[in-house]
């Protein structure tokens, strides 16, 4: 998930979520970067509205989340 967190960090910081950005964030965290995974991540996010996607609870999540005891 560290790749996804790197992407979200860039997104929240208002930066483009591209290969260079993700790689440099990961490197700063001391992660040995796997270029293929970075590429896969960036490709998967192409055309995705991140803001909308993070707000949308996954499948059965909505009611479950509501019920989940704190």
């Amino acid at each position, binding site marked *: *998930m560290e*790749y996804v*967190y790197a992407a979200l960090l860039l997104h929240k910081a208002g930066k483009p979520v591209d290969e260079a950005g993700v790689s440099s964030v990961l490197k700063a965290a001391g992660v040995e970067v796997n270029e293929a995974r970075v590429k*896969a*991540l960036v490709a998967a*996010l192409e055309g995705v509205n991140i803001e909308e*996607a*993070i*707000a949308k609870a*996954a499948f059965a999540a909505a009611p479950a989340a509501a019920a989940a005891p704190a």
Partner: protein
Amino acid sequence: MEAEAHHSTHIPQWKKDEIKNIVDNVHSHRITGIVDVRGVPASSLQVMRQQLRGIVTLHMTRNTLSNIAFNSLPEDEKARILAEHIDGQIVMVYSNENPFRLYKLLEATKSKVPAKGGDIAPEDIVVEKGPTSFKPGPIVGELQQVGISAGIEGGKVVIKQTKKVVKKGEKISAKLAEMLGRLDVKPIEVGLNLKAVVEGDTLYMPADLAVDEVALKGMFAQAAGHAFNLCMEAGIATKDTIEPLIQKATMESKALAVNAPIFEKEVMDIILSKAEVEMLAVAKQVAGKEDALDEELKSKVQ
């Protein structure tokens, strides 16, 4: 400087040593702070001091000496500003921890105690309505006297009405303090109360240092949830997300098959029971109408 030099000539040696001691401590520690210890019994203070030993140094000294010590610091030293916070019963604290950790350590020393007459209410003090453990007696009148509406129910004294008895910042009377004590209301917080702390060039006030850990946990949960949602929406396959992705796909497939419906063996039982539930729901709507349903169905929906 000259004035101070002049001043210092009138100061006895032990005071000079103490002032130097303060200045040395400020310089040899990462952070210096002022702690309010009002209301903390001396014995408790000793215990706290022991508990913090090695992490935080509590230094009790005269306010005037602390004041002189801070004012003797070079103009560009931020710690000078601490002189402004010297007031009342205070102690100096020195530590090499960061200010946030210091704040947490000091907060942990706090506990609630009963009020004494003359204490200032740190927040609105409210007496909740409900039963008490008191047997009927003069207590009822005493409570009434301090504005707490009390009565007797089932052989016990009860508070009849939730009441704010003192507003934040107001003085608590001796009589009210006594009643609150008997009701086991502990409105006064006692402990090491950090007033200000300086680290390098930064002055931190308590408001800067209070980090809500519950809220922080919530933010972590939210951030993790967002990452998870993003993975589910964008189909990002990682070790952490592949199983949920498979489950999402499985559930979507079943949902589609049931809702379309698409007649697949795996979902036929769901489709059949869905149909039956629908039928029963409709039947229920007409169950009261004469002859609308056969006996078997009536028995199922009534």
